[in-house]
């Protein structure tokens, strides 16, 4: 990869950032088209492993873009390039949206008593909460699509009830779930 390629990568990520309502997971197919199909900077399996891993790993899901960058760097120049390209990719996908969010926050806090601002926050609330529950539903069904996976459904249900109850530490629930899964008891 030459300088023009790196510049092209950054320009694409900056543009994707501005368009990433709901987060960059919505851009997965577009990123795949650009990075794998068009430019061949990543293999198909590298791309898919990055997406799967980032969803399983701790931290915000946007980190899959850092992992994509890491793999692009590995392909282009090994360990010397990988950390830099990972950082470059993460900054590229986040800087525009985070800056916009910061200025939006400033504007909203100056205008918090405007009728339109109040109406927006209150009017959007039911929809965004529903979307959150729906994303949990989609995550549950992505793993467990048949009745044979009933143990995974029970796991999801038990986890949900315990979180609503609120007394159990969520990190330990994940660890126990992972342990039971590895032993083949759940999945």
């Amino acid at each position, binding site marked *: 990869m030459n300088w023009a390629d790196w510049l092209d990568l950054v320009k694409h990520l900056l543009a994707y950032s501005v368009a990433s309502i709901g987060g960059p997971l919505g851009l997965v197919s577009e990123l795949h088209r650009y990075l794998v199909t068009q430019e061949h900077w990543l293999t198909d399996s590298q791309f898919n492993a990055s997406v799967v891993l980032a969803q399983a790993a701790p931290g915000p899901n946007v980190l899959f873009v850092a992992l994509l960058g890491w793999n692009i760097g590995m392909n282009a120049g090994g360990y010397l390039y990988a950390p830099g390209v990972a950082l470059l990719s993460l900054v590229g996908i986040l800087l525009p949206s985070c800056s916009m969010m910061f200025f939006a926050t400033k504007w*909203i806090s100056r205008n918090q008593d405007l009728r339109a601002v109040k*109406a927006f926050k209150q009017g959007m609330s039911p929809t965004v909460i529903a979307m959150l529950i729906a994303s949990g*539903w989609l995550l549950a069904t992505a793993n467990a699509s048949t009745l044979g996976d009933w143990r995974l459904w029970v796991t999801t249900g038990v986890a949900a009830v315990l979180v609503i109850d609120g007394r159990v530490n969520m990190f330990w629930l994940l660890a126990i779930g*992972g342990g039971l899964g590895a032993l083949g008891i759940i999945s």
Partner: protein
Amino acid sequence: MNQVPHPVPESLSDLFFSFTRLALQGFGGVLAFMERMLVEKKQWMTRDEFVQEWAVARTMPGPPAMNLSIMVGAKYFGWRGSVFAAAGMLAAPSITIVVLGLVYAQFGDQPQVNQALRAMGAVAAGFIMATGIKLLTALQKNPLGIRVCAGLALAGFITIAWLHLHSILVLAVLGLVGTSLAYSKIKT
């Protein structure tokens, strides 16, 4: 507006490490852990405030969890707060994910690894739905009224979870309906 006094982050490092801590726990998405920390443990905001900030964070471009961290940081320490909160969300987890990537390359073909990941995915899905259900309780104070809120929420869930419509389309249409109705109900 009656302002209830609640705890605030003590310093930039408090902000940074609080977000680091929650991000490192947040397998399969950090939002459930953000709600637990911001609303229940640290009590930096009420559930009602959390829902309203989330509405903005989810509507703006960018990862909603990152957007929320920027809002929280800016509220207490201006742009420095945003930088420290966002850095807390990213610094330790990005190193972790690279290490996990190297581990996964070694052991990813073991069946136990995939079984564990599926099980953790199922747990994380439960966390997300539970968080959404908890947030629904904040809608009791919404000026739209409980019936309109229930209608919008049900429509949002069905169109995305069952009909698989594009989430930006659902956000735009239902959001516009909700915002217009709220605008007509709020007195200035």
